[in-house]
């Protein structure tokens, strides 16, 4: 590793002040699983300063608030898996956290880091997009909340400006307990990047799909929604054939590339299969009157 400055931020404001002061010369250190690999092996010059936010209390932890389920940005994947609240109101997020890296990396890697690294194959993205998650951004001018979908700009690029910091992720109250499924397909069961991952959520009261959301990873420059497949499902009776058709439509909305891991055609086929499986998993989590109970 080449030399870099290091400051442990005391709180969000301290971190933001440092990020604003150093601008593009600063990198945020949370769990370190991506940043350390970068610092060791990247051909680019090292950052001027690494701003360590791993002890910022405000950014840690999972809590139910009046607004919904709040997950601090430096909450680790391991903590998400262990959380009884997540298991109860958002089990698909625990499913996703459980297939990131391996157990040791999940004890280091953070939810915020997974989103901010912004690789198209991130496993946290699809479930959160399918639940209309929002993110809180702290910056020199104060705080703002944006939909998660507006965070993603391109591979390894987010909409955050220099001086800004991701503080937390919020899944709105009305979407807690919404039946959701997450699926990932990699070349191995352990420690593999997703060739494709996907999540689907929908209320299925009265035997009809309502407010369906389908999100796809690793098949576009960022994690995307599949609006045509969602429109197809909305108001339609719940059936296996409808789920399969939604998968086929989503496959036409994906824009996968061919690389050394898989061909575009193969990834497209996977989208169809995984979307259907996500919907089946969501149905498995649906109970009568779920939406009424949630609100």
């Amino acid at each position, binding site marked *: 590793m080449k030399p870099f400055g290091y400051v442990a931020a005391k709180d969000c404001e301290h971190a933001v002040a440092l990020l604003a002061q150093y601008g593009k010369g600063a990198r945020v250190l949370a769990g*370190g699983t991506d940043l350390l690999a970068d610092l060791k092996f990247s051909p680019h010059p090292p950052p001027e300063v690494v701003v360590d936010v791993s002890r910022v209390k405000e950014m840690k932890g999972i809590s139910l608030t009046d607004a919904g389920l709040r997950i601090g940005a430096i909450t680790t994947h391991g903590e998400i*898996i262990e959380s009884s609240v997540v298991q109860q109101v958002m089990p698909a997020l625990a499913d996703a956290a459980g297939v990131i890296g391996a157990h040791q990396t999940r004890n280091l890697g953070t939810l915020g880091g997974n989103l901010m690294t912004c690789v198209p194959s991130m496993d946290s993205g699809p479930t959160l997009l399918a639940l209309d998650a929002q993110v809180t951004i702290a910056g020199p001018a104060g705080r703002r909340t944006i939909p998660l979908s507006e965070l993603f700009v391109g591979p390894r690029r987010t909409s955050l400006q220099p001086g800004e910091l991701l503080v937390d992720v919020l899944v709105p109250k009305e979407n807690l307990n919404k039946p959701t499924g997450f699926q990932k397909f990699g070349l191995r069961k352990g420690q593999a990047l997703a060739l494709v991952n996907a999540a689907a959520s929908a209320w299925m009261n009265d035997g009809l799909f309502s407010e369906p959301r389908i999100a796809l990873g690793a098949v576009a420059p960022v994690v995307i929604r599949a609006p045509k497949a969602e429109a197809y499902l909305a108001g339609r009776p719940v059936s296996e054939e409808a789920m399969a058709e939604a998968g086929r439509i989503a496959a036409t909305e994906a824009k996968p590339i061919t690389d050394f891991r898989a061909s575009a055609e193969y990834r497209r086929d996977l989208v169809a299969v995984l979307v259907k499986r996500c919907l089946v998993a969501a149905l498995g989590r649906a109970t009568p009157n779920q939406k009424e109970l949630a609100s």
Partner: protein
Amino acid sequence: MMKLSFEVNGTPCDLAEIDTRTTLLDALREHLRLTGTKKGCDHGQCGACTVLVNGTRINSCLSLAVQHHGDRITTIEGLGTPGALHPMQAAFVRHDGYQCGYCTPGQICSAVAVLAEIEAGVPSHVTADLGAAPPLTNLEIRERMSGNICRCGAYSNIVDAMAEVAGVKA
């Protein structure tokens, strides 16, 4: 350069001057001469560098030493000694849970953490019922050890060693 104080294997350690670039792994090996923890891939994929930080297993190669001020670190040297082996170390010897031995310290640290995680009721990706205590099956052990690679392929014997310590048949 920074000052770093933490506890390693029960002993307080003060490093007066440590380069901020130093990983926890390098601090253990190069500064404290605890060479039991191994450097394999050095980017979080092989698990040879697994240590316990405040009881939680992590890849020490992916963590800066200066992030661990005040932490409690346990390495393979802290689990047992040649004269007084940890039950997991003894079981690895009994079951031949290694061949070349390079991945073994990481495997044993991970194995100790796995049994603690299961006892604490932490579910894994293959746990079917999230509400119940995770069963100590062959599948659970293999999933939970998937972050530790053994190129000699001693996996079956590692599972046997872990099952013996846990008191089950895997």
